[in-house]
């Protein structure tokens, strides 16, 4: 059961972030003022894939909550960082972002840090 929850959490996180990143880049630059939030809600209402992305976030959130009820946080947090690796790879190959040596090195350092903090 524990690995089913980990898989559900990782897949939902990856899918949710990819969809949100892709859709938000298309929607153009947003701001976080009161008017910015209102405009953002309007953007969300108009984009089905964005709503799907948020639904994925919800699945990921509840899988994480279910996971931490039975497993220690020191397992759940590093397990959730598997999505970090997958997402960075997919950002390169699916979203065509240019990673470069510096960004790759930084991402690897962050990943090692997350595993140490959770472990």
């Amino acid at each position, binding site marked *: 059961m524990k690995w089913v929850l980990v898989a559900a959490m990782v897949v939902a996180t990856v899918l949710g*972030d*990819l969809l*949100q*990143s892709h859709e*938000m*880049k298309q*929607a*153009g*630059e*947003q*701001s*976080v003022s009161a008017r*910015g*939030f209102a405009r*953002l*809600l309007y953007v*969300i209402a108009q984009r089905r894939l*964005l709503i799907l992305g*948020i639904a994925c*976030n919800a699945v990921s959130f509840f899988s994480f*909550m279910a996971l931490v*009820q039975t497993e220690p946080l020191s397992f759940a947090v590093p397990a959730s960082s598997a999505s*970090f690796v997958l*997402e*960075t790879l997919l*950002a*390169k190959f699916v*979203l*065509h*972002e*240019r*990673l*470069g040596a*510096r*960004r790759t*090195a*930084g*991402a*690897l*350092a*962050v*990943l*090692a*840090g*997350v*595993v*140490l*903090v*959770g*472990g």
Partner: protein
Amino acid sequence: MTNLPRRSSALLKTYSVLVFFLALKAAGNSAMAWGMKQVPERMSINPALYLHAMLNPFVALGVVALILALLTRMALFSLADLSFVLPVTAVGYVIAVFLGKVFLHETVTHQRWLGTLLIFGGAALVGSTSRNTTAPAENPK
């Protein structure tokens, strides 16, 4: 070079949204954790229990802050790459360790401090790269 002021103001905007996100996330998580400790019922699959927990003002405050954090993160996605947003928002772990140490008096092991340092260094390294590599305006070459 004429677009330099515009680019630096876009950079400033990206970092302000990032800081706003981190603040909302830290405040939301803290309020949620504080509130949930006061809720007597243990959570299960039953959604009514979660709704009942939200009657606690700290839990409600936490939920509102975390929803705003989600929206702020989406705004951040509109400004920067996914491979940029992921490492720089990991600074949230550093803030969580710090808040746990200062306010909840948790003991922080050497391993956790080392991890915190790696996250901070890695995020700074990623932060020094061009934030948006897919928008045509950012890549005049």
